[in-house]
């Protein structure tokens, strides 16, 4: 376990993170030594062309994946040393995910999707869950559709529910992979406004995108190319 005494604003630190995939004897290196510090309360965009490694980086930052070598330190704890149940607990309680294709359970209602996330996170007290679910859905403008089946909602509506779900367990980090990729520009704007709305002093947002308009919302733009950080601009 490593503590990070130098930078009290740091939520997550990547040290020389390398990720290599091997498939049938072929090796492909997606990340070639990334050093990155993610700070509390900041809005990051990760940009880069297809195959540049941005999704891989995002998955490692979201503790969905671990680097082949190098270290990931999340809130002073090295992720590589955590067991599945601990990683699951961190993902459930601390990190909210938003995906390009929403990834809700379509055969359940918006509210059930919210409750399910709170159940796996097990952070919000049982008796408060329903109320919190309703209020978060209202925040994203879906308060009147909480009992609708997800499959009956439009893409933009589903993504709004997904953002509410990402907020369900009051996470300190929200990780979004091309959240506007499947949406028209009007819906994309609504979604990005929501991200801006839900960030706070303590909440960090990381969005991977290749849409420059989306990147405009970020405080810090990180560009990745061929598995390496190309630039970091404020």
């Amino acid at each position, binding site marked *: 376990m490593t503590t990070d005494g130098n930078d009290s604003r740091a939520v997550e630190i990547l040290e020389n993170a390398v990720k290599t995939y091997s498939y049938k004897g072929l090796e492909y290196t997606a990340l070639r030594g990334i050093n990155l510090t993610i700070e509390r309360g900041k809005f990051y965009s990760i940009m880069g062309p297809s195959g540049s490694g941005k*999704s891989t980086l995002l998955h490692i930052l979201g503790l969905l994946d671990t680097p082949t070598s190098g270290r990931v330190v999340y809130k002073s704890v090295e992720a590589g040393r955590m067991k599945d149940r601990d990683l699951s607990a961190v993902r*459930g309680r601390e990190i909210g995910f938003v995906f390009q294709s929403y990834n809700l359970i379509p055969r359940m209602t918006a509210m059930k999707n919210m409750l399910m996330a709170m159940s796996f996170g097990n952070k919000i007290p049982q008796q408060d869950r329903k109320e919190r679910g309703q209020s978060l859905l209202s925040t994203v403008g879906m308060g009147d559709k909480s009992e609708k089946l997800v499959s009956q909602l439009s893409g933009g509506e589903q993504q709004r529910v997904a953002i509410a779900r990402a907020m369900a367990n009051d996470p300190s980090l929200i990780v979004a992979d091309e959240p506007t990729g499947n949406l028209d520009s009007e819906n994309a704007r609504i979604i990005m406004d929501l991200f801006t709305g839900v960030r706070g002093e303590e909440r960090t947002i990381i969005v991977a995108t290749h849409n420059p308009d989306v990147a405009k919302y970020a405080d810090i733009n990180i560009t990745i190319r061929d598995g390496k950080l190309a630039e970091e601009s404020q």
Partner: protein
Amino acid sequence: MRIAHSAAIGISSIRRHKLRSVLTALGIIMGIGSILAMVSLGSSFESYIVGSYSNTLMPNEFVVSIGQKSGSGTSGSYYSVEVPVFTTKDIHHIQNESGITSVLPFGAFPGNNPNSVKFGNVSIFGSGATATEPSLNKFFRIANGSTFTSSSQCVVGSSVASAIDSISNKTSPAYAIGKVISVNLSGSKIVDFTISGVLAASPLGINGDVFVDQSYYNQTGSINGTNYVAYTDLAVLTGTADQVSSGISETLAYLNSSSQAKEILKDYANLNLGFVTFSQTEIIQFIDQEVQSFAGFIIALGSVALLVGMVGIANIMLVSVSERVREVGMLRAVGARKLDIMEMFLVEVLILGLIGSLIGVLVGIALGFVFLKLGLFGGASVPLVIDWAWVPLAILLGMAISVIAGLYPAYKASRISPTEAIRSE
């Protein structure tokens, strides 16, 4: 509460894919259904047979006959044959044994042929005459009418009565009473008898018999050149049902040691004959054994169906897992542990197993009913007896098998990496 959500996801998946879920459960439905149907048929058959024996043979009664041994060694089974061996002396001796209250001799007339018994001009097939005493009604239940009181009357077995019914286009069980049949008693002696009573249907092989007074009987057995009147079967009553087994062993001990019957049997040495007994207890034990081995065979068959069902469940669950890679990845992303994912699929398969087993129970009962209606037991109207003890057992079995079948797919689902899952979009 996590398991409640796992269950909710599983149930929503089952509801989403109703047809596929039913197909998945089909193996379990058929396996449980066939096992339950066969067990029900077995117990229906058993209770029917036991019921009909106890209808004919009283608990404190046994029958002694001559059997021909088939197979070798001591374990071969006997086929009952009609050979005149039991003499008056033997009957007296058995009557004086402790616990035995009365003995009724039966003398089957030899040479029964399709024309032995006629009603009007119509022959009653499979029917033949047996001489006995009027006390017949103390040994076998008379369903209609009464025993014969003179040598011009007779008591007939149930199939003789129903033959008379069908010849006359009647269905009343009492129709035969008072009708006259002509009976060929050994060779050329044809006598007319008025039917005074009809016996209850029996599995003892007496349904085709016409019971007449023993004054007509003249079959003999020979010992050292001397002929004695000898009967083919004996029915024996004991004081209580508990005395049947000691009565049987005493009777057999006597017959096999100092009886005249044993001497007479020497004339038939090449036929491999021996004394055999029937009693309610013996017959029930025998049927129990038969039903048990039948049930064992059927359960083996049902197990094969369940095994096939298990492979089907495993296969379709694997398909379901591969279709839900993304869902699993998402759940892992929102904090589900590997264990939660396993639980989710196991709950799903458990619910499928429960539904399949419940439907299987209904299918089993329905199958049993249909088989009985189709006349599986030679047209006898056997009522369906459901062995309720098997129902919870069958449901548990179905669920256990489903869970076992779901273990590998559930394990596989739990190994899905969240990144791969999300990447599959």
